[in-house]
């Protein structure tokens, strides 16, 4: 599938934003500290920025408001509705933290639950598509939520290190969630590797009863919307290398940095380790998301010989 940069940016940024909001909601950070206030603002900026970015790939962005209407059937609509609704508790929480320096447990918990639900809806947009077998599994939303939580915990550890309180708690949570996230992703990837596609050129054309079907001529000599949108190949060619890069930056680097943070002494070391962990994770996640789109094979390519 064609990985629109705006979609990759949206899923990574909003995932991190919701993850951070959830960690803030669970009270991992001291609400009095300046770093915590910055964290509240950053989480809203990440979520809002992600949403704006998601409208950039639309053909008619000025009609985007209409996307809120079909929540009965469409996961994309549900995601939009949930994203807007979740702003209410998250903005109230942020206001409390910014101006009163405190947090309300009930409000924070509502915000956290809604944030998880929003990330779930985002992932279900992809997981609900039967046409892309790699995505059509409950492991897809599980990965999205797990990565969101891990990213949120990493950012929470960073803000704790900056002065929001004791960073070892969030760091330990981050290490645990990072492990869960990558284990889930590994299960997702194993499923994809083992996947035998039910849809083949034979079922696509109905000619399987005669023999093996091979494309002789495409409808047009040049590329079209479908081959652009569904037949992206660059990342597929280098998928193995990109996967190693994603794991290296997104799992090994933050994992090592978190161990250093947990065992080391001194503010400078702790802050540097937390910053490196966050940076590596974001880079790794961007590559992981790129692969998620680019590696996915769409059934329509059975008509295009790919």
């Amino acid at each position, binding site marked *: 599938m064609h990985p629109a940069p705006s979609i990759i940016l949206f899923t990574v940024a909003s995932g991190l934003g919701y993850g951070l909001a959830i960690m803030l909601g669970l009270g991992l950070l001291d609400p009095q500290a300046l770093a915590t206030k910055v964290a509240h603002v950053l989480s809203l900026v990440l979520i809002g920025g992600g949403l704006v970015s998601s409208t950039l*790939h639309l053909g008619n962005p000025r009609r985007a408001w209409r996307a809120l209407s079909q929540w009965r059937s469409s996961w994309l609509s549900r995601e939009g509705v949930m994203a807007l609704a979740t702003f209410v508790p998250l903005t109230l929480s942020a206001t409390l933290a910014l101006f009163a320096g405190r947090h309300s447990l009930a409000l924070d918990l509502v915000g956290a639950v809604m944030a998880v639900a929003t990330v779930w809806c985002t992932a279900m947009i992809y997981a609900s598509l039967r046409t892309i077998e790699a995505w059509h599994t409950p492991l897809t939303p599980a990965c999205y939520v797990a990565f969101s939580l891990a990213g949120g915990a990493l950012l929470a550890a960073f803000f704790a290190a900056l002065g929001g309180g004791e960073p070892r708690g969030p760091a330990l949570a981050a290490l645990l969630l990072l492990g869960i996230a990558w284990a889930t992703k590994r299960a997702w990837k194993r499923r994809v590797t083992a996947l035998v596609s039910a849809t083949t050129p034979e079922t*696509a*054309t109905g000619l399987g009863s*005669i*023999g*093996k079907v091979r494309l002789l001529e*495409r409808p047009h000599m040049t*590329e079209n919307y479908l081959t652009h949108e569904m037949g992206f190949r660059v990342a597929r060619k280098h998928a193995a290398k990109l996967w190693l890069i994603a794991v290296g930056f997104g799992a090994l680097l933050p994992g090592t940095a978190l161990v250093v943070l947990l065992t080391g002494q001194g503010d400078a070391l702790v802050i540097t380790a937390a910053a490196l962990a966050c940076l590596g994770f974001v880079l790794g996640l961007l590559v992981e998301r790129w692969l998620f789109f680019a590696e996915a094979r769409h*059934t*329509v390519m059975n008509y295009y010989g790919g």
Partner: protein
Amino acid sequence: MTSLPSLPAPKKIGLVIDLDVCVGCHACVVNCKEWNTGGYGAALSDQQPYGADVSGAWLNRIHTFEVVPQGGEIVGEAGDARIVHFPKSCLHCEEAPCVTVCPTGASYKRAEDGIVLVDEDKCIGCGLCAWACPYGAREMDVAAGVMKKCTLCIDRIYNETFEEVDRVPACVRTCPANARHFGDFADPTSDVSRMVVARGGIDLMPEQGTRPVNKYLPPRPRTALADMASLPLAENTAGAKGFFAWLDGMLDRI
């Protein structure tokens, strides 16, 4: 409203495409583009129409496949390969996945006749319906930023200013080989229903659970070249009578 109609439609109109007959001339492709660029909704734009990298939105495309019989790795090894021209447009599925994913209500399936349409004034051009369609029946009009698809020529089939013979989709009207047929599948006595029964009409990608309305008629079995008379036709004298039979025999003997 992007929920599918809850009751089965009283009419189920669609196409039968005969893969035995299609000669791959692309006339239906061209007439479809011609009709629909000036008909329903935004024009079907082309990008760089006179450049090297030309592309554009089409609602009907013909693919050509080569079918190698079972047991053969290469063409001709296990018998004659067949070339099958394969026209493909929207199948107007009963369980249309493109409709339910639409976030805006632009995509809908008509309750009265089952046609799947896009209300272009509501379409935000997110492209999710094209991702949800297993057949590649939907293409974005890059210039208008809205999704385009086959309307079954809704502006022809109900157009009472047309003569009866013209009230069929442009692709059906134009096909010089009569490979495309239009009709109501809900009526078991209609031509299309009878054709499907007689020829064993098939669904594309049944495993996707879309229950397409359009049906494809598979190519008829063909006599293998190897089973035909071993002599070239021009030298086969089996049917000769009278003087020519006598001459044939005499010339064989000398």
